[in-house]
């Protein structure tokens, strides 16, 4: 039975719409994964050299044993955020004459097919073969291998168990995350405990008593069994998938009322962003990117160069336009038909987009004003890039929106979600980042950097004041492609 499930799963993967019909994305993803993989492999292979550099005063095996637990704690933390729960896919099998045990067993087993379970093998095994096998013999090496596999399995199921629990109650996730952060802080900041010593306590003893390797195995098996039981008791669709029902209240944005129909559209879009997972993470990302400046501005090496400021300024004031705008109008794919037959003129629809961009960018610009601490010039550059984003970036983004006909499922998270990503998006990000430098770099080398900023500001302002022209052009362009877009959005 489990092999049938597995076959279905493979088919689901290869036949899913997102499994890159698009070759370019597939290649880029493969290269990225390969790159990460190679990095890990290199770190794993030269672990002994790295450890000697970082902890020059400690014995090699001691420092190796010390870092294992640290690794697993941070792994747990990232698993909690990134690892996906294998859940809803069982839905079609629940009512068929299939034993619950095999469904649950399958669910619990497939949870092992996660990249996370590969990292510790790549990272730690080379060291075990290179050093431990050589120093302590085959039995100890075997004990290490078994322990590491055991802890990985334990970690795997612990993360899933916590995730399942926190699906029912969001506080659990926050509490666990806080505990993990506190553990980290109490070692590295407050020096109350030493994770390295605790880690060594186990792995150090493992060298003398290889039998101890059974402990992680038992832990892993126990955690698996706990998951198995929990799943079996809760194998009901609503309990596995939905979160707690909360009363959803209607909201209003009185300020937007003065904008008429355009304001209504923007109000709807703001609700779209706040009430759906993926656009919400796009917004949160843009808030995070407001800290981007700290990396560059606090770096003494870049103190007096303007080039990174152009880049950073553009990103901070325009990240929302770029990140959210690149998937326009896919966000509205699920109700695009409704929008098309409603009494909404496309002009107003476009005006709504501009209004949204302007609002968020202005907000972002205001939030970046504290960077004035690093000098007034930075504020000036931010303002120039803010104008540029409103006058140029917004137009380019909307031009490409007309060329995007990929549906997006709003309810799915943003991390590692390639749904709706196509060549258009890749080209777009390139096209957005290039033009400011085309203006800035030549003028800078000719010795007129300020002229470059004046020029960019002017172009931005012109772009803002000629918006009605752009709206007309974009509208005519949209009607050329309307049917392709509506058709694409209907394709689930």
């Amino acid at each position, binding site marked *: 039975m489990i092999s049938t499930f597995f076959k279905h799963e493979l088919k689901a993967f290869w036949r899913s719409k997102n499994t890159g019909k698009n070759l370019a994305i597939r290649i880029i993803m493969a290269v990225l994964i390969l790159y990460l993989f190679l990095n890990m492999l290199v770190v794993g292979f030269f672990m002994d050299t790295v450890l000697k550099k970082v902890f020059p005063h400690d014995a090699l095996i001691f420092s190796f044993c010390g870092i294992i637990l640290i690794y697993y704690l941070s792994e747990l933390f990232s698993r909690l955020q990134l690892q996906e729960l294998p859940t809803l896919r069982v839905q079609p099998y629940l009512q068929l004459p299939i034993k619950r045990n095999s469904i649950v067993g399958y669910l619990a087993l497939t949870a092992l097919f996660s990249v996370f379970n590969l990292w510790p093998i790549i990272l730690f095994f080379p060291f075990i073969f290179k050093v431990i096998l050589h120093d302590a013999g085959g039995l100890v090496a075997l004990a290490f291998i078994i322990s590491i596999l055991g802890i990985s399995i334990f970690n795997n199921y612990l993360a899933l168990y916590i995730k399942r629990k926190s699906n029912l109650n969001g506080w659990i996730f926050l509490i666990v995350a806080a505990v993990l952060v506190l553990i980290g802080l109490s070692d590295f900041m407050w020096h109350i405990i030493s994770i390295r010593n605790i880690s060594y306590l186990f792995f150090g003893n493992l060298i003398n008593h290889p039998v101890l390797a059974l402990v992680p195995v038992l832990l892993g098996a126990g955690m698996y069994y706990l998951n198995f039981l929990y799943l079996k008791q809760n194998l009901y669709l609503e309990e596995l998938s939905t979160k707690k*029902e*909360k*009363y*959803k*209240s*209607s*909201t209003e944005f009185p300020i937007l009322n003065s904008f008429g*129909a355009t304001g*209504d559209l923007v109000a*709807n879009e703001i*609700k*779209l962003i706040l*009430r*759906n997972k993926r656009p919400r993470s796009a917004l949160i990302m843009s808030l995070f990117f407001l800290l981007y400046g700290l990396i560059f501005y606090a770096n003494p090496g870049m103190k007096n160069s303007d080039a990174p400021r152009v880049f950073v300024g553009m990103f901070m004031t325009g990240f929302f336009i770029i990140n959210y705008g690149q998937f326009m109008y896919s966000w509205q794919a*699920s*109700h*695009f*038909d*409704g929008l*098309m*037959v*409603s*009494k*909404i*003129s*496309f002009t107003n629809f476009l005006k709504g987009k501009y209004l949204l961009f302007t609002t968020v960018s202005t907000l972002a610009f205001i939030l970046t004003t504290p960077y004035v601490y690093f000098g007034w010039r930075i504020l000036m550059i931010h303002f120039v890039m803010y104008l540029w984003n409103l006058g140029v970036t917004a137009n380019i983004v909307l031009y490409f929106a007309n060329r995007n006909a990929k549906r997006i499922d*709003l309810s799915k998270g943003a991390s590692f979600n390639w749904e709706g990503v196509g060549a258009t998006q890749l080209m777009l990000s390139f096209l957005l980042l290039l033009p400011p430098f085309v203006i800035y770099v030549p003028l800078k080398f000719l010795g007129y950097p300020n002229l470059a900023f004046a020029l960019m500001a002017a172009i931005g302002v012109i772009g803002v004041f000629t918006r009605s022209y752009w709206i007309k052009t974009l509208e005519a362009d949209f*009607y050329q492609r309307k*049917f392709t877009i*509506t*058709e694409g959005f*209907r394709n689930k």
Partner: protein
Amino acid sequence: MIQIKDLKKVYSGVIVVNIPQLEIQKGESIGLVGNNGAGKTTLFRTILDLIRPEAGEVLSNNEPVAGHENWKNYTASYLDEGFLIDYLTPEEYFYFIGGLHQQTRVHVDDFLAGYADFFNGEILKKGKYIRDLSKGNQTKVGITSCLLQQPEFLMLDEPFANIDPTTQFRLKNILKEVNKKGMTTLVSSHDLNHITDVCDRILLMEKGKIIKDMATNSSTLAELEQYFAIGDVTAPKVSAEPIVDKEENH
């Protein structure tokens, strides 16, 4: 009201809609019937300018729907959940649609108060987004938002599907009532009883063509039942030969 001329839509070599001539007069109530794949929804979508026909055109009030937006002012339609903004609460959605037609919130509230029975207490003030409603309740939201717009022309694709029997009867009365007030309606359905009850004129579609266009009278239901009952042999023959239907097998 609506004129269709030489309309043709082809999907991967198969003609799914092929209507040389069809006219819908103002104030008519039209029922569209036909088996799955007959082209009903495709016809709806072409009338709403959501798909581009390979040939021909649809005129609404003597103006092509393609490339024009005037028809949106007096046409309301609900084909599927894709017409609803699912992350809004029903109230927010109604206010939004009302706002597009320059209706104040008070006006919308007044209008909705008249639909309390229709909603059966399951739509308003329940603290749910439209996406959390059942399919039947979503249909109710869609139909009501159409009526809220007080359109001259109303299009509903299978409105009787998914809703409970009580609501079906209420919907029938509502449709009759708005039609009496002069609203042109185009409704598709698989329920022959309902459709002959509500509509004055029935269009029967098969493989993209309108093969029957008849005014409803006492014998219409029987006629439709006879058409749809093909292959249904009252005394099942025990025979190795498959039953080949002439009409299906041209």
